[in-house]
């Protein structure tokens, strides 16, 4: 075998290091500057390692995370193709928002956890207009690195990430139908029109939802406001006092994700307002932003609530993609 590399002492050490890294179970780095023969040797080592009886199966959380990310991406791509942005947003296109937001154990973003880990965007980058927050997409960097790039849309909408994902899924699904072209007229985003107070719903009607029980009418009347949480969002319900003409329905339900940066707002019984612990966002009883520094924010998005004959109140929440322990798995 001519052209064979001379064996060096370092070769043995480097290989040993590589094998130990593989055995330790974390990322394994072959040495750099490999010759074709050496590269082949290391690839064979990787092959042998993968034949080890230890599981070659992916983590289910990873499967879910990637799925959610793909949906969010498709949503961004669709936005860029659509020229329907009503508003010119400020801020540079390649905002360096890319700090890891989703840590490994989470599935589709549960609102109650995400806010604590979010990056603080400098004030000038927040759109000042009160129209649709269609912020520039973060730069398309490869996700080969350890950071997870999260779209600004998801940061701004907070709890709407799940909803945005579901919405994008509708558009993405169209792409995967045989022979179908995406129907622009059926194109869905989380907020296709400027959010009108009283009409701004988190979930597009086409998104598959489940009914989540929150309280009975009796309980709600006595407690005034009830907070609820699911895998995908946190929200509040209250009775409609009829004092605001813009608000309809017997029961009003809304997302608790502050429309500034997605932190979960806290209801304060003494002023009957929702307070955001992060930047002082303030919302009135039905989610309308109050005058002050945060007056240009969107109202808290509404959720659809249903009151049954037996007095039980249910809220429509996004149907979960997969629940832990459920029969559905990502493996073919």
């Amino acid at each position, binding site marked *: 075998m001519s052209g064979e590399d001379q064996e060096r002492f370092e070769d043995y050490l480097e290989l040993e290091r590589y094998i130990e890294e593989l055995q330790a*179970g974390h990322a394994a780095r072959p040495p750099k500057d490999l010759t*074709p023969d050496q590269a*082949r040797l290391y690839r064979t080592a990787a092959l042998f390692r993968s*034949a080890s009886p230890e599981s070659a*199966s992916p983590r289910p959380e990873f499967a879910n995370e990637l799925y959610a990310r793909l949906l969010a991406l498709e949503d961004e791509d669709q936005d860029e193709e659509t020229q329907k942005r009503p508003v010119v947003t400020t801020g540079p296109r390649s905002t360096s928002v890319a700090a890891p937001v989703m840590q490994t154990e989470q599935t589709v973003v549960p609102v109650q956890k995400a806010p604590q880990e979010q990056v603080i965007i400098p004030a000038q980058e927040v759109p000042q207009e009160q129209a649709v927050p269609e912020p520039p997409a973060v730069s398309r960097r490869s996700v080969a690195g350890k950071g997870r790039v999260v779209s600004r849309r998801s940061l701004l909408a907070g709890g709407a990430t799940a909803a945005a994902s579901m919405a994008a899924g509708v558009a993405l699904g169209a*792409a995967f139908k045989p*022979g179908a072209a995406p129907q622009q007229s059926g194109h869905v985003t989380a907020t296709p029109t400027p959010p009108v107070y009283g009409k701004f719903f988190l979930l597009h009607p086409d998104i598959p939802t489940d009914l989540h029980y929150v309280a009975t009418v009796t309980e709600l009347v006595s407690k005034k406001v009830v907070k609820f949480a699911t895998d995908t969002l946190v929200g509040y319900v209250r009775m409609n006092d009829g004092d605001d003409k813009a608000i309809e329905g017997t029961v009003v339900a809304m997302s608790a994700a502050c429309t500034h940066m997605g932190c979960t707002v806290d209801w304060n019984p003494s002023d009957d307002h929702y307070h955001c612990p992060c930047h002082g966002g303030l919302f009135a009883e039905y989610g309308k932003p109050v005058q002050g520094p945060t007056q240009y924010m969107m109202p808290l998005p509404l959720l659809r609530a249903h009151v049954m004959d037996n007095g039980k109140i249910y809220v429509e929440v996004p149907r979960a993609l997969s629940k832990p322990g459920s029969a559905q798995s990502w493996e073919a």
Partner: protein
Amino acid sequence: MQDFQTFYQENFGQIYRYIYSKVGNHEDTEDLTSQTFIKAVRSVDHERGPHSMQKWLFQVARTTVADYWRAYYRISVNSLDELLDAGWEGPVEEEPIAASTTPTERVQRILAALSARDREVLTCRFLLNLSIKETAAKMGLTEANVKVLQFRALKRAAGLEAIVLGTG
């Protein structure tokens, strides 16, 4: 939504296991799997049907893996032979990812073609996951011996892989 979910469900596992068999650890596999799907979804041609989407996806997986390994190569590779040797899959359609052989089967075939000593050291380190120390004890060698032996055994295994499996 349902169609993409189905597509993802049908292909995620295969792609993951394929990449895992090429890089040998989960962390890198997650990175590369993400890259593959993101690339594939980004460049999806809406006119494609799901079957051709699948082929496209597999192709992207192959080039993603090849890129990963290429990053470790010495830059002087310039002849086509060297490139192919180095694992560049090229435009040629190689074995389908959903091959009939699993990594375990392929490894067994290679092992069967090696000498007993080579077989033993590779089994110890890769299939039994023994440490250097444990392997040395088991085989009655010094640790230094094992380091040399595993290197050469792997080298011979690498050389045999093409012959035994009939792949390039």
